[in-house]
């Protein structure tokens, strides 16, 4: 009876929670902190995982300018009416514009090419200027060039960065007419646009970042807390790209939680895509350490993770933190939990993401940590 299928057990357990805790919850909500609301909608039925792109390497190519025209006008009454070649049109720029409409770089392609200007034609007709290729990026995007230097910081709405300039239109032979040379046969070729490489980086990605060793249960935790659907599998590095989920509280505050790929020892030396994964952690405000309590010595995992954060960047280790011991439904997890609480200075919360144990307490702790960080003056970024 107690050990029937997981679904029914979970349903009965949640029902028990709601029935027993309802009067106490009402009193607690009124005088303590906001409670996390359950999502009203069911999980999405889409098969593929929707990852979050917070850094992108692009190549921007400006449009070529149109060529100038060599032409001489012939009329009915004046068969040698002089030069009338038109100028070419300008090529388009590649422009990044900061906007609130987008949140990540999923929509930005790897090669961004602007349109070419049209060439000039006879009867002094200038070529058509090409439209600029405007790509919307989130507010707070930092643009690096190929040498790694920061050349753009789109920190406010509608700020634009011209990534690649287009070529100017070439002049037709009408432009080259002088008093001495009344019939020039020269014109200009339209030059090619700039061809440059950039790296777009997002300054801020999520409010909470789940940091831990590979196979510690971070994706399972995100799956349990939010409606996001990261891939869950019992092998290391199941997650290679960050996934985001949103938790809504009853005072209309939404917090985003990012499931980050796992960090291994020597990640700051780019072992196991470590640099890339540490950059994901840098874009989160609150760091939630997910420790595998069923591992042999989970307290050494915490020390190793702190070492990686310190080696990567000076300020990353001073972010507000929460420590969570996962997999308490296993017997080894429960045995290690007392030792873990004794060794770490920070308070450790024991949960089971798979079974759903103690998740309400976790959401309350997240909200409390976020509010405490919000009340402090903004020191970093």
């Amino acid at each position, binding site marked *: 009876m107690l050990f029937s299928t997981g679904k029914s057990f979970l349903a009965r357990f949640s029902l028990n929670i709601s029935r027993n805790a309802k009067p106490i919850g009402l009193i607690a909500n009124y005088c303590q902190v906001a409670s996390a609301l359950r999502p009203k909608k069911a999980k999405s039925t889409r098969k593929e995982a929707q990852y979050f792109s917070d850094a992108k390497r692009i190549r921007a190519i400006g449009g070529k300018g149109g060529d100038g025209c060599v032409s001489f006008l012939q009329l009915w009454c004046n068969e040698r009416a002089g030069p009338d070649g038109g100028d070419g049109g300008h090529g388009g720029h590649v422009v990044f514009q900061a906007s609130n409409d987008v949140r990540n770089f999923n929509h930005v392609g790897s090669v961004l090419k602007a349109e070419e200007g049209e060439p000039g034609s006879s009867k002094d007709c200038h070529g058509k200027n090409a439209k600029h290729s405007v790509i919307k990026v989130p507010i707070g995007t930092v643009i690096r060039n190929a040498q790694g*230097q920061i050349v753009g910081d789109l920190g406010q709405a509608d700020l*634009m*960065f*011209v990534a690649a300039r287009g070529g100017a239109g070439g002049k037709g032979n009408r432009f080259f007419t002088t008093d001495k040379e009344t019939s020039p046969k020269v014109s200009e070729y339209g030059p090619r646009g700039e061809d440059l490489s950039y790296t777009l980086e997002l300054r801020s990605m999520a409010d909470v970042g789940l940091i831990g060793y590979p196979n510690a249960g971070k994706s399972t935790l995100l799956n349990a807390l939010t409606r996001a659907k990261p891939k869950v599998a019992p092998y290391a590095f199941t997650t290679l790209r960050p996934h985001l989920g949103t938790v809504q509280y009853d005072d209309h505050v939404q917090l985003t939680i990012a499931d980050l790929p796992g960090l291994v020892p020597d990640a700051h030396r780019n072992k196991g895509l470590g640099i890339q994964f540490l950059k994901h952690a840098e874009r989160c405000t609150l760091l939630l350490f997910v420790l595998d309590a069923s591992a042999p010595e989970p307290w050494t995992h915490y020390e190793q993770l702190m070492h990686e954060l310190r080696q990567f960047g000076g300020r990353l280790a001073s972010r507000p933190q929460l420590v969570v011991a996962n997999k308490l439904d296993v017997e080894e997890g429960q045995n290690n939990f007392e030792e873990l609480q004794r060794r770490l200075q920070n308070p450790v919360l024991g949960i089971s993401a798979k079974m759903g144990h103690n998740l309400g307490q976790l959401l309350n702790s997240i909200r409390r940590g976020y509010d405490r960080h919000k009340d402090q003056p903004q020191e970093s970024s």
Partner: protein
Amino acid sequence: MLKARNVCLLSRRWKSGAKKRWNVLQNKKNNCDRALENFDDFYGSVYGTRWKNMRAALLTRHKYVALVNNFGDTEQTCAMLESDGAINMKSLINLAQDRVKDSTETVPEQGKSRHEIESKLDALLRKQQEREVASIYPSSPEDGSSAPLPLELKFDNVEEDQPEQVNNPFKQSLTKALEEDVKLDEHRLVDPQFGTGGLYEYMPAHSIKGMEDWVAESEHYKYYQTSADFPLAIEPEPSFHYPEHLSLYTYEMGNCSDFKGPKKCMTGVLSHFMMDGASTLPPLFLQVKPGERVLDACASPGGKSLLMLQTLHLDHLVCNDIQESRLNKLRKVMQEYLFDYKERWAGKRLILSQSDARNLDQYEQFDKILVDVPCTTDRHVLNEQDNNIFKPTRIKERLRIPELQAGILANCLRLLRPGGSLVYSTCSLSPIQNDGVVHMALQKVFTEYGITTTIKDLSRHTALFSDVFKFEHPKGLKYGQMVVPYLPANFGPMYFSKITRNV
């Protein structure tokens, strides 16, 4: 109706004879005028106030040197020349050597003011480029907007590949990079609140369509490069020996008398050969010794080859030239001055070869090489209309002559045996054809074939000839020495540089 009227107009215009109008004839420029105009602009910038004296000397009659034929009546010819007042150059050199032994002079260091030549040529290049841009682009357009003109024109639509940027993987965190590596590009950031002017900046056009066969004059001035990215050593020449049997007669400085014409000797050859005095210096400084194989890469008309033969040190000489008519002229000179040309010299000790000097393939076989490359021949183009390189149809050939010269010199350096010597000479005052070509050739043989060379400094030995010639100050030259035109001693111009191939 209109076309018939045009025909009438044309016939009337032809009838009047427009090509013979007085203003057309008055303003007509011939080849010498074009050459003089070019030299006034170019050499006036390079040589400054000294160009006026050189100009006067170039336009005045040439001064000659008589080379006595050792295969004829040597004693009688020498006696005749001395009775006319000529002086043997050997005695002048002996006097100069005695004077040098008494007082040891310090030769001024070379290359001290080399930057003056570089800055002058850079200024000349920039001025020439501005002139070319101004000749094509209209000035002060009708709308009054003065668009910035391109600094340099291109006449082909070959798109240069942009150099690939260095993709160094940056491993710093974002917060650390925001503190250290921020170099915001203000020209690319556009804030709509303060205007969208940054969106109207485009890449400028600089390629001209329709003038693909037009050769820019500024390309000629780019041949002078000074970045030495090959091992370069300049050493003084240790010794100089005037040949014992050579007799060169000249008048003293300021004397512009003429020599008598050559006469036939008892052996049937002519008594002496008239040549430019400065042309004797490259064969003399080549220092040919008995038993050496010698190549004269551009031999015609044969004065330098004949001088080397007159030293009586030569066992094997190869004379090369590109055209058969020039080789025929050389052969005629040899027949006139060597009485046993057909029996002993032709095909055995004197070999005539007709080929391009850039295509000679007898690599590392010659001990001494004399390279008298084709050049602008400054004195000839100012005085003669025929065979003038400043003809309008030969502009491309003239502007690209440093490439030809560098190709010939580079190939001759490959023909040289390791340890052998080469003398490069031109009849031009242009630094581009003199030091510029030597630099190009040395760089080419080092980068392509790994050949290293040593420049021999001849300044100490050219001082021996200062009673006869006027030399350019060593400060203005980098790799060689130059005889400049001078009214009392109207020889030259002749630039020569001695290069030794390292082992």
